[in-house]
């Protein structure tokens, strides 16, 4: 058994051009990602950077040009690898003609769950995603947030060990977003591995243990979130209710210490976005 929940090694994916003589487009260029069981991994990158392609290769929806993808040690191209995976695609619609409960039953039966076990599971999941009141409403009448939540529920129906989420909070209102993020944290606490990709950097920062930044098909930065967003030669001291005199004394002390300088005094700010911009545009503070 592999020690990794997700093991992507030197993944390359080329898409041939429809025009003769034009070189193939390389969507993913040597990407490697390893996620240990129980971790929450966030893959971030601009549009067209290769995030979705990487996820699809992991799910066997497309074949790598080179490299390999494995889920808990099983080759992604084999159906067996999907026993332990739940997937929520970006902007899913599902079958509009089914109700919430019917949708979960459908996916549950596909995973060979039946009878009382299935019914219990369906009720539990609907409670978990707070859709018990809408269980008998057709998905055609669901809001965006509700669709995301039912999507999450179907991804969880067979109690997978790995959850793959593509833009789980895209287009969802702040309240819905919060609910989804809380759910992800709850799942992490249960020991489920989560691999998500998102544009919404604040939200990634809140839930992920590990982050990978992908740009133009290449992984440009990867590691523990805490370490990534820490600036090496800088320390941060956050004070509460500090008086101007105290701040002045600190400034004075720093000024008298050789090799040390005061970088910034002011209100605390997020740093992930800055790091992201620095890596993708070569600038930024």
């Amino acid at each position: 058994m592999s020690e990794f929940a997700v093991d992507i090694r030197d993944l390359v994916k080329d898409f041939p051009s429809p025009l003769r003589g034009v070189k193939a487009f390389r969507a993913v260029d040597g990407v490697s990602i390893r996620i240990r069981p129980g971790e929450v991994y966030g893959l971030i990158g601009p549009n067209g950077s290769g995030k979705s392609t990487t996820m699809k290769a992991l799910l066997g929806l497309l074949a790598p040009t080179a490299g390999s993808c494995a889920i808990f040690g099983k080759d992604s191209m084999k159906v067996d690898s999907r026993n332990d995976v739940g997937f929520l695609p970006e902007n899913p619609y599902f079958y509009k003609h089914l109700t919430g409960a019917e949708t979960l039953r459908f996916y549950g039966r596909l995973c060979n769950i039946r009878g009382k076990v299935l019914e219990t599971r369906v009720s539990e999941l609907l409670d978990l995603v707070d859709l018990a009141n809408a269980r008998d409403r057709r998905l055609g009448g669901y809001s965006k947030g509700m669709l995301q939540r039912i999507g999450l529920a179907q991804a969880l129906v067979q109690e997978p060990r790995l959850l793959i989420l593509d833009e789980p909070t895209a287009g969802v209102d702040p309240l819905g977003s919060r609910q989804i993020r809380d759910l992800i944290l709850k799942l992490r606490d249960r020991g489920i591995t989560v691999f998500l990709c998102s544009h919404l950097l604040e939200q990634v920062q809140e839930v992920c243990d590990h982050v990978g930044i992908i740009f133009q098909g290449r992984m440009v930065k990867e590691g523990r979130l805490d370490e990534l967003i820490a600036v090496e030669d800088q320390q941060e001291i956050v004070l509460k209710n500090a008086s101007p005199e105290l701040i002045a004394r600190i400034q004075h002390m720093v000024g008298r210490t050789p090799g040390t300088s005061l970088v910034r005094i002011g209100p605390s700010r997020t740093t992930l976005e800055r790091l992201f911009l620095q890596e993708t545009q070569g600038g930024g503070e």
Partner: protein
Amino acid sequence: MAERTSNRWLQPRRVAVLAMNTFTQLVRMKVFYFLMVFAFIALASQFFDLPQYNGPEAVGTGELQLLKGWCIGVMKLYSIVFAITATALLLPKDVEDRTLYTILAKPVPRIDYLVGKLAGVLLLILVSLLFMDGIMSLLLEVRTRHVMATQMEFAVSRGWSQEALESLRRDIGAQGLTWSLQGGVLAVFLQSAVVGASSLLLSTFSTSTLFTSVVSFLIYLVGSFQADAAEFYRATTEAGTTSFASLALKLLSLVFPNYQLFNVTDVAIQGQAVGFHAIGSLAGLSLFYVVLYTLLSWIVFSDKEF
């Protein structure tokens, strides 16, 4: 932890789940309701008399043939149109809505997915045909009794012998509800199964419902006259057509199914007996085509990228 899924291909339960989901999807589509209403109206129109030129003594088996011909024609039209359009829209719709991703992200072999989709369409066609067959049988039974009563009354009034009356009863009965007619309805279903499978194959190549529908319909037309084409080829090789034309015609008859074989329905309408062997042969041929097209669909679909 959920029970470990068996990932063997063509697991019956899994295929059944996909088939029933497809069945439900199609039933709940508004277009299906319109089609059924159309079929019902078309069939029920037979409650109204066709133009009658002569008096009651002329009410005869011709009327029964017209009724059967019309009803079976409606059933055929419905089943072919539905087999093509329903199958053509399934895959593109699943891709567009990304429901395909969620299904294939589960441990579902791609062949199970294809077979399940096709099975769902065919199940719906079968149920619809049974429903329409029920209406037709009811109409036919009512009309046959009417024709029988009218004709027998006329014959008795003319002093026909018992033997002649029996002969008349047999003739009218042969034009009424018979097992051969049901065999004809089965032939309609078998044909729609082949058409649906060919549409499935095309939809694995194409992402456009419209393209798949149009080409499937063209294949159906070509398949319907390919026997004539083959005959033309045989006749013209004697007359000396170009080798290219002969080769083209020969290829046509090899690649396209011969849908004319399913026209045994026509003679069933005339009241002629269609034996078990004929229906059995058609069932065997249909199975061959359905399996062939499904396998080819899987070959294309198995490593299709999304």
